[in-house]
């Protein structure tokens, strides 16, 4: 049963489906950014090996906004860490930008936003955003210009000289997004970036993020355990299930890109949210 479902999910994912022929053609035109085939990861722990990922098949194409959703322990963060080459898969193949994940990391082809802002407290906001740029050897004038541009983009113009402790949690997380986008990677990996924030701030940042995605055409992989957040942001939603971590279903969203918070009350939105919820529930029935 498990394998049958996983295989089914794989088919769906592999095709990068749209219901219509047009959608499929459009999808096929866009180059794959992430291609995972039968990806598994087993952690060796002192008492027993833990299967964090099992038989993951997933294709993510350029310009997608893909959410990984599932209960805690379903391997969504692990999957993202594998894509980022922060963890090594035990078996299966993974291509990022057509090469290995390690190569993609060495090429600095993605920006990673962690669950916590992870700002360096001794650096001003501006210097925090400039950190990756310094490491990449960008000239000083250009660094300053970039930092200013991306601070503006996340709505924090004028905060250059402040220090992290002087900002609220939501503002800090926006800084960390600016930091990840500042070196203009084509792929943004976001690991529950708004998980620790209150709902009002979270809504606000969701809208922000959606506008950024629209504006920049960047590919985003987004880990969350909030159904409304996943549906609101994503062009595709990958529903995952724990023990072992696997993909249950990939749901494509045909909501228009220019959504706002009110879109969350439309029948189309609720319909997709319902499908996600049903898929998540199916995952739980295995336990």
């Amino acid at each position, binding site marked *: 049963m498990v394998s049958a479902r996983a295989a089914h999910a794989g088919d769906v994912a592999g095709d990068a489906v749209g219901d219509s022929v047009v959608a499929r053609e459009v999808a096929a035109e866009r180059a794959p950014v992430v291609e995972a085939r039968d990806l598994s990861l087993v952690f060796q722990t002192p008492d027993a090996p833990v299967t964090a990922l099992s038989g993951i098949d997933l294709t993510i194409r350029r310009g997608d906004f893909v959410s990984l959703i599932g209960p805690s322990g379903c391997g969504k963060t692990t999957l993202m860490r594998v894509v980022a080459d922060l963890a090594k898969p035990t078996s299966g193949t993974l291509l990022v930008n057509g090469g290995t994940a390690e190569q993609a*990391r060495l090429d600095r082809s993605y920006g990673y936003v962690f669950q916590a802002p992870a700002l360096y407290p001794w*650096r001003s906001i501006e210097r925090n955003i400039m950190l990756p740029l310094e*490491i990449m050897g960008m000239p000083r004038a250009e660094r300053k210009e970039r930092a200013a541009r991306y601070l503006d983009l996340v709505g924090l113009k004028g905060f250059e000289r402040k*220090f992290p402790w*002087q900002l609220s949690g939501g503002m800090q997380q926006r800084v960390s997004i600016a930091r990840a986008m500042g070196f203009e990677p084509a792929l943004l990996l976001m690991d529950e970036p708004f998980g620790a924030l209150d709902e009002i701030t979270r809504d606000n940042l969701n809208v922000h993020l959606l506008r950024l995605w629209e504006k920049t055409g960047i590919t985003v992989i987004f880990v969350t355990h909030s159904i409304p957040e996943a549906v609101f942001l994503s062009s595709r939603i990958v529903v995952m299930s724990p023990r072992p971590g696997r993909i249950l279903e990939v749901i494509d969203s045909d909501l228009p890109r220019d959504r706002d918070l009110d879109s969350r009350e439309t029948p189309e939105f609720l319909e997709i949210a319902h499908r996600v919820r049903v898929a998540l529930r199916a995952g739980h029935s295995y336990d």
Partner: protein
Amino acid sequence: MTDAAIPASWKLGAREGVAVPILTVLAVVVVIWYAAAVWLNAPQVAERLDRAGPDWTAGDLVSGAWAMERPVLPAPHQIAVELYDSVIGRPVSSKRSLVYHAGVTLSATVAGFALGLAMGVALAIGIVHVRVLDRSLMPWIIASQTIPILAIAPMIVVVLGNLGFTGLLPKAIISGYLSFFPIAIGMVKGLRSPDPLQLDLMRTYSATKAQTFAKLRWPSSVTFLFPSLKIAIALALVGAIVAELPTGAQAGLGARLLAGSYYGQTIQIWAALFMSAFLAMLAVGAVGLAERGLTRYRGGRL
């Protein structure tokens, strides 16, 4: 940064609550001290008064106990007078000026501290980056501090003397021997303090080891470094003074202490002790000042 953002207690001068407790403690100590001086010096004073005749009062005993030339415990004002005479009353270049001796000890302290800092930091960097060093060096570093400095100081002096090194260097080495330890321990802790998230971040930038060190590990360690530095510089001073004892040095607070004890000049000993306490405060204060400056540069938090 607006002033409102800084808690009042951080500001310089917001110390109105500190003076009264400090002065109270000082007053209590002084009172106890005078009493102890009477108690400890009384037998000798009484003997002397007896020799002059049987007609002496308690007042004579007390004033005598506070004015002895070589008391068991000098009264505070005697020490104050000696300090004044040997600090202000003599030219700094004089061999009897306490400022001159303090200067000699301070130069050994600073040299030893610099040596300890370099060694402590180098050891910490090695231990954090090389697994073999972590396993092999740590036990030796800890063992080094279990040897009493008083036992090893003469050996160092003798060995270095045979090699032709005298003067500042042996003192600086003994001083550095004491001060490298807290720095090494603090730095190891500090260099390992970045959390996994901060380290992962560096990995996503495919930062080199050197970059991770310069931009993450080193700045993280500063928080741990300064408390260590304060302990280290105080220990460096102790080391410098101890080093002056077996070297037969003619100058320095240690030499002053030793000379004082040879000739039973307790007042001189106490004056030198107070001078060394003052030096320690000065040295620790200087480190604190550096810490404050760096804190300001880093946005108000270390």
